């Protein structure tokens, strides 16, 4: 009797469920119907579990109840609110927390670069480890491999290739931190060694100044982001190695989710740096002063996005009352 009485309500609910679960802007009346059905369905489920535990009816009611619950308690999506929260509160807080690690990574990177410089400067044959045969031949002719790059690749294509590559390196530095931070150490050390080695090799042929001129417009942002990605990688590694009062998976989850929040603006800036590297860096029409201005300007913009936006009026409210615990 009870099944017959309630079956009409269940049929009605079955028709509502897809709309409640999937629609971004469901009809308010329909949502109200679903809200009213929620406690009724809970009661039906309780009855079904008590009177016929394990029955298909109980299972189906359980499924319907889970779907209704999921639909009704779906988190609200507001892009504007999310962006203000992200740049006004979360990104600056996480960047501030990671600042010491970022500094340590930067020091480690420059130490590795110094080692790379010293190795190639004192053993020129090691240049083969950091440069391809074609690069070596070009430099030995007194030219940089970056010169005439635009004759081979159009700027647009070059930009995409570069920022895709940089994003992959940053993501790898981030993800490989999961191996107790070791993967990140290898990536930072390897990139540092290669950069130092390449500069030493260019310097041997009197081209270090021109190489620096090529790098200066995009290098500040790219290197800073690699440092940030590596610092996140280290924090992930540390979370696994030393989870403190959390379980390892909880600590890992927290470190990754915080790192991913910080990576979001970084990836946007990597795209910007890729565009600069494709359009500005290989173009001889840009003098050194303009390159420096672009490089330092974009770097300051990155710093603003990572910490300074909370000082702007629109973000101040969102950034207020940030509790240490939220970090």
């Amino acid at each position: 009797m009870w099944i017959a009485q309630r079956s009409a309500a269940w049929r009605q609910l079955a028709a509502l469920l897809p709309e409640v679960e999937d629609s971004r802007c469901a009809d308010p009346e329909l949502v109200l119907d679903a809200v009213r059905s929620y406690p009724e369905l809970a009661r039906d489920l309780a009855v079904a579990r008590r009177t016929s535990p394990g029955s298909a009816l109980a299972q189906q009611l359980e499924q319907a109840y889970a779907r209704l619950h999921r639909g009704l308690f779906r988190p609200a999506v507001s892009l504007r609110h999310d962006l203000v929260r992200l740049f006004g509160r979360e990104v600056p807080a996480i960047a501030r927390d990671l600042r010491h690690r970022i500094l340590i990574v930067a020091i480690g990177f420059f130490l590795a670069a110094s080692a790379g410089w010293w190795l190639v400067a004192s053993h020129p044959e090691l240049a083969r480890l950091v440069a391809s045969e074609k690069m070596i031949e070009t430099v030995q002719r007194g030219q940089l491999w970056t010169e005439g790059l635009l004759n081979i690749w159009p700027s647009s294509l070059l930009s995409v290739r570069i920022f895709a590559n940089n994003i992959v390196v940053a993501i790898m530095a981030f993800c490989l931190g999961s191996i107790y931070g070791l993967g990140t150490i290898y990536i930072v050390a390897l990139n540092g060694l290669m950069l130092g080695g390449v500069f030493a090799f260019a310097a041997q042929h009197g081209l270090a100044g021109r190489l620096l001129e090529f790098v200066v417009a995009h290098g500040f942002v790219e290197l800073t982001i690699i440092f940030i990605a590596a610092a996140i990688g280290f924090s992930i590694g540390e979370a696994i190695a030393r989870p403190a009062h959390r379980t390892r998976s909880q600590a890992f989850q927290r470190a990754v989710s915080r790192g991913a929040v910080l990576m979001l603006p970084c990836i946007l800036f990597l795209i910007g740096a890729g565009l600069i590297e494709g359009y500005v860096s290989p173009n001889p029409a840009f003098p050194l002063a303009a390159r420096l201005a672009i490089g330092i300007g974009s770097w300051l913009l990155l710093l603003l996005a990572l910490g300074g936006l909370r000082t702007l009026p629109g973000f101040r409210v969102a950034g207020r009352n940030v509790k240490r615990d939220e970090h």
Partner: protein
Amino acid sequence: MNAGADRLRVASVTGMDVELPIAGLGGRSYAFVIDWHIRIAGALAWFGLSSLILYGDLLAAVAEVNALLFFAVVAPSLVIYLLYHPILEIAMHGRTPGKRIAGVRIVAADGHVPSVGALLIRNLLRTLDSLPALYVVGLATTLVTRQALRIGDIAAGTVLVYDDADARPARNSIWRTSGLANVEADAVARLGLERVELVCELLSRWDVLDAGTRRRLAARLLEEDADAATEAEFKGRLQELVR
């Protein structure tokens, strides 16, 4: 909330907790294989068709390097292949066509629809799960973790669960087809819920069962001899029994 090795308990405000079955390696890889074929087919279709339309040659992009070709042919194909999962999982609230077919969906650890951030993190960590090749790391962690989680799931706080609404249409027949919703109240009182459910189940699967099986099951439920009637008569009697 965890209810056990293979179920995720979802607490609700009414105090009526429900448990969702966690999808293991089978459900997960089944969904992935379907999705992989869809995205590779989509990417190749875009590559071939756009190349054909722009250059009259299916493989023009392989031979040439220029900006138009890259942005019109190669880049969209890569976007389809690489961003298929994050975009569709966000748009479909934790599902993709492959997951839908496999009957699984991603939920947050509390059973709710995962946030956009969680879905992005989950996909970002595919890089790690896919190492060194063929998702070896992801498969290994799925095998050793209690809730069959890959690293991306652990990081994002998500769980892959079976979503019966799409996975088991036959079992969903209670209010969809000829099931209990249409059963007369006195039939339940007379036969008991368990028997009525069995009859409804048999009727909903009548066409997919082989003749011998459905005749044998019908006879057993009607407590008659298997040769007592034709198949059509058995079906009619079963329908009468619960109507």
